[in-house]
């Protein structure tokens, strides 16, 4: 089978790479690990190794070309095999993607990038120096191995080199920087539209209370409204595959797994912690995993797999007493559901005013992937599931 050669992402903010040289000619035999090409990023010149064995074919990038990260630029094929006719190329946006079908190289880079962002390390020397100089560690961006903060980073900040920013300006942490990049990319590249729906949560709250009572004894789990919503959402997504798809630049790819990403607040921003295959997980499992993820997120110890592979995001600001809000999509996901608090409101029931626990949901969708009607059908099924959770769970 043909193996794709992609422009790798080697750095945090890299969108493109410049092809400096092919080390092999088209038609030449290549073995895994051999130098295959040389690329230039904005920081360095790097030699890229062959991802597998085969014959170099279907080269689409010439020397000197500036190519978006993640794009296929050649193939390694078996003797007599032709390279795939239509090379699936990813938009530059795919760099920050969490699509399950991305190349392994990009995945590794993304994993490294996120690990760096989330679990900043500091060397013993730097920590001592920061204390001595009274430097706030959280303001430092590490330049050492895997983003480790070194004493040089501390010193340059203490001497004002790292803090070249004008007074009153807060320097970005890595989480903050990443959040800024991702939201800018999502907001500027994805054509958003929003659907709003109020839903009666009487049964949802009852179900959650029941689960909590049962599972406190059996599982040491105490499911929250968010946990029940994750489960309902994932089960409804099974029918609505398009909501669980991704825009690739060439077409729409449906994601084989339903991985619900849960937006979590950490010190300097927000991260999306992923419940993988949430549609097949039991409420108790979801609850325990979500609690674990929350603890790891707060401690800055999320692992790469904790934050990659999400296909749909749930963001709940109910605990902050927010009534409703609109959220920004994280590409290449096609949608994000923003839910507000469940609060008693007066609504008509059977023609009479009644007080019901109501919640407002706002669904942000990528209009390249779904249209209003399709998104509305999904939201309607989700609202039904929330109104009668027992039917789904």
């Amino acid at each position, binding site marked *: 089978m043909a193996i794709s050669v992609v422009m790798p992402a080697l750095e945090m903010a890299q969108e493109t790479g410049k092809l400096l040289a092919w080390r092999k000619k088209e038609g030449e035999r290549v073995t895994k690990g051999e130098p295959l090409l040389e690329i230039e990023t904005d920081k360095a010149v790097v030699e890229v190794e062959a991802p597998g064995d085969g014959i170099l074919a279907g080269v689409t990038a010439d020397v000197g070309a500036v190519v978006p990260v993640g794009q296929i630029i050649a193939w390694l094929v078996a003797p007599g095999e032709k390279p795939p006719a239509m090379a699936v190329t990813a938009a530059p946006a795919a760099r920050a993607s969490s699509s399950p079908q991305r190349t392994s190289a990009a995945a590794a880079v993304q994993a490294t990038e996120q690990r760096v962002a989330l679990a900043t390390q500091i*060397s*013993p*020397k*730097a920590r*001592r120096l920061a204390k001595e100089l009274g430097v706030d560690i959280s303001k430092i961006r590490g*330049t*050492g*191995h895997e983003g*480790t903060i*070194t*004493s040089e980073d501390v010193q340059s900040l203490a001497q004002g080199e790292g803090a070249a920013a004008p007074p009153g300006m807060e320097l970005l942490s890595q989480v903050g920087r990443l959040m800024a990049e991702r939201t800018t990319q999502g907001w500027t590249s994805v054509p958003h539209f929003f659907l709003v729906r109020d839903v009666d949560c009487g049964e949802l709250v009852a179900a959650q209370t029941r689960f909590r009572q049962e599972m406190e004894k059996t599982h040491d789990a105490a499911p929250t409204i968010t946990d029940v919503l994750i489960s309902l959402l994932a089960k409804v997504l099974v029918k609505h595959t398009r909501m669980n798809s991704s825009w690739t630049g060439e077409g729409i790819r449906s994601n084989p797994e339903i991985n619900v990403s849960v937006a979590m607040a950490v010190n300097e921003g927000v991260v999306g912690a992923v419940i993988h295959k949430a549609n097949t997980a039991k409420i108790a499992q979801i609850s325990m995993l979500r609690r674990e993820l929350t603890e790891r997120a707060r401690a800055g110890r999320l692992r790469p797999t904790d934050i990659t592979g999400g296909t749909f995001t749930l963001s709940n600001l109910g605990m902050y007493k927010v009534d409703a809000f609109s959220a920004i999509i994280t590409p290449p996901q096609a949608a994000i559901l923003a839910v507000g608090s469940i609060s008693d409101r007066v609504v008509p029931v059977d023609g009479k005013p009644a007080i019901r626990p109501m919640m407002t949901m706002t669904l942000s969708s990528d209009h390249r992937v779904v249209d209003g009607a399709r998104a509305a059908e999904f939201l309607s099924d989700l609202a039904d599931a929330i109104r009668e959770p027992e039917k789904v769970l």
Partner: protein
Amino acid sequence: MPEVATRELTFAQAIREALAEEMRRDSRVCIFGEDVAEAGTPFKVLSGLVEEFGRERVMDTPISEAGFTGMGVGAAMTGLRPVVDIMFGDFLTLTMDQLVNQAAKVHYMSGGTWKVPMVLRTTLGATRRSAAQHSQSLHAWLSHVPGLKVVMPSTPYDAKGLLKTAIRDENPVVFFEDKMMYKQKGPVPEEEYTIPFGAADVKRKGEDITIVATSSMVQVALGAAELLEKIGVGAEVIDPRTTWPLDEKTLIESAKKTSRAIVVDEGYGRYGVTGEIASVIAEGAFYNLEAPVKRMGAMHVPIPFSPPLEDVTVPTEQTVFEAARTLCGKG
């Protein structure tokens, strides 16, 4: 190093010269071992000694390491200064009772009445295609035992000076020579000199990373340092020269200066010399370190006979270079 040293000797010649000089100087110095007389050992290190000193002082023994090491311990206790030759360090396993329970304990258990001024010379080192029973580096075993001193020279100059010190020492000393270094040449002055134990030697100065290396790994470290210089990393290479006594001060001071350290030794990485030295550095220089202290030893496997496999079992210039580059955040 001497200021003027025009003469060059091989490592083997330096060892032989140290033995000859000490045997001329002190008639109590004698040599026991397999094939040490006319054969001059398989490595030809002792060639010519039997001709000068005779078979009474350069004595071939039966193939019984336990037996003739015990003979050495007894001879040392009763007034001679024997130099016992164990052809391959792998055969040390047979001498362990004599070394660990006798030689290392006699002085202590006799309340200082007896002493064992014996030197046991042996070899270490892989990549000679000698297979699993003739390629090990077991110096960690002996460094672990109180009462033994352990010497690991890396150059002809150090080999000669340290061996003379070993022969004059009143305690049992185990002297390890890497069999791959016997033909390595280096400056050795004509005039008399000795090198004290427990004094590390800075083989190369550098500001960015400390590479502590023993025996032939010093050459590997120096090669890696050359590669590192090309990418702007200045490596300081330090040879402790004796694993016991150990010059902790020099190691810690260097690590404090550079903030990063790698320890390279050809013995097994697990529970080995690298672990001990890395701990000494971590304890002494922790608040000056930018990165964890890295250990690099032989893989935890029997040394393979297959050359391609054997070559990757022990640290190389390239692997040390890569590790250093990563620690410095440049890889």
